[in-house]
């Protein structure tokens, strides 16, 4: 799999990240909804980041295009990025033919390049459960394994067995069964 070295640039481009606490805004007032009309929300807000499916920009967009991808509207992404996504897919897995969904490289990368998350209003939510495909993304869905299988697993999900699961199958904290669903912070 030395061809996947090609995206090492992606992984190594960021060398140092320092987290600094900013404004210590502890104000904790409960404001009635009426006050929304009294607060200044004016101005134009310009897009900085965008995300549909997990890890798409990280895995498939070359380092020089990451900001551009984040500021492209989804309706324009396919035309702008499908070709580069296909190149990246074949760099990751030179032996790619089709995947478990039966998608050849042009078709698969055409789906991926338009970075939206399909959500069903009627079916159970799952990223992929063997039957339902992309009916949303639930907190516990092992989206990385799904993506690894689709990239490396071949038509029967049997290729490259060492690359089709990271063997981390669940979160480090249990999710809640009711709103807000996400676990309390550490």
């Amino acid at each position, binding site marked *: *799999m030395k061809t*996947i070295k090609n995206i090492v640039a*992606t*992984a*190594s*481009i*960021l*060398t*140092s*990240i*320092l*987290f600094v*606490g*900013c404004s*210590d*805004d*502890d104000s*904790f007032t*409960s404001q009635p*909804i009426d006050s929304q009309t009294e*607060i200044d*929300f004016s*101005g*134009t*807000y*310009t*897009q*900085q*980041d965008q*995300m*549909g499916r*997990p890890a798409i*920009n990280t895995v498939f*967009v070359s380092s020089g295009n*990451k*900001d551009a991808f*984040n500021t492209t*509207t*989804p309706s324009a*992404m396919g035309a702008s990025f499908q070709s580069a996504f296909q190149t990246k897919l074949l760099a990751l897995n030179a032996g790619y033919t089709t995947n478990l969904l039966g998608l050849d490289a042009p078709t698969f990368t055409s789906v991926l390049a338009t970075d*939206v*998350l*399909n*959500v069903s*209003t009627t079916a159970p939510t799952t990223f992929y459960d063997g039957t339902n495909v992309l*009916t*949303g993304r639930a*907190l516990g869905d092992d989206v*990385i394994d799904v993506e690894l299988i689709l990239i490396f697993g071949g038509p029967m999900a049997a290729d490259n067995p*060492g690359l089709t699961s*990271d*063997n981390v*199958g669940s*979160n480090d904290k249990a999710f809640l*069964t009711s*709103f*807000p669903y*996400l*676990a309390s*912070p550490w």
Partner: protein
Amino acid sequence: MKKSKILLGLALTGVLAITLIAADHIDAPAVAGGKSDITDFYAFQGSNTDNMVFVANVQGLITPTASSSASFDENVMVEFNIDNNGDNVEDLVIQAIPRNGVMFFFGPVAPGTAGTTSMVKTEKPLGSISITPYGSEPIITTNNGAKMFAGLRDDPFFFDFGQYSAIIAGTATSFNNPGSDTFAGSNVMSIVVELPKSLLGGTGTLNTWVETKKK
């Protein structure tokens, strides 16, 4: 096991330089490490299956130590986009933007103009909720049929990104078993809104995505 994971998380994120890009964490130079950096997006049926839940997480890899001073940026709007006719152009948006410790929600409403710039849709308020302080029980509200939350949560993403990076770098040829969750023990700033599916403009399959937009 949890204690060791906490220590690992602290060691990974609190001490030295780190190289992490995964899910959507720190995915691009312009947003990496800033308050508009989206880390993850989720959309799923609520515990009441008449409802849909949208989650936007920003500013990943917040250590417990850094959590008490973590905050949303009042110049950054988080915008959930919903396309209900399959053209990948948003037909409805749900906006969230903080002011003075309170997260304000607007929508679902047609955007003024689809695309990369937005105004706050003040004519369509959904509700508002105090941002939950670190260490407090989640503060939630229900308004106009929608539940809302904003504040710190455990990062729900899990991935052995360290081993993935080693594979990409050519120093490993496969994942370990068991793997090691690189995101264990770290927090994110989270915005969660749950609302009736009937407000989403259609049934069947929706195309959804989240954006951060900055003033």
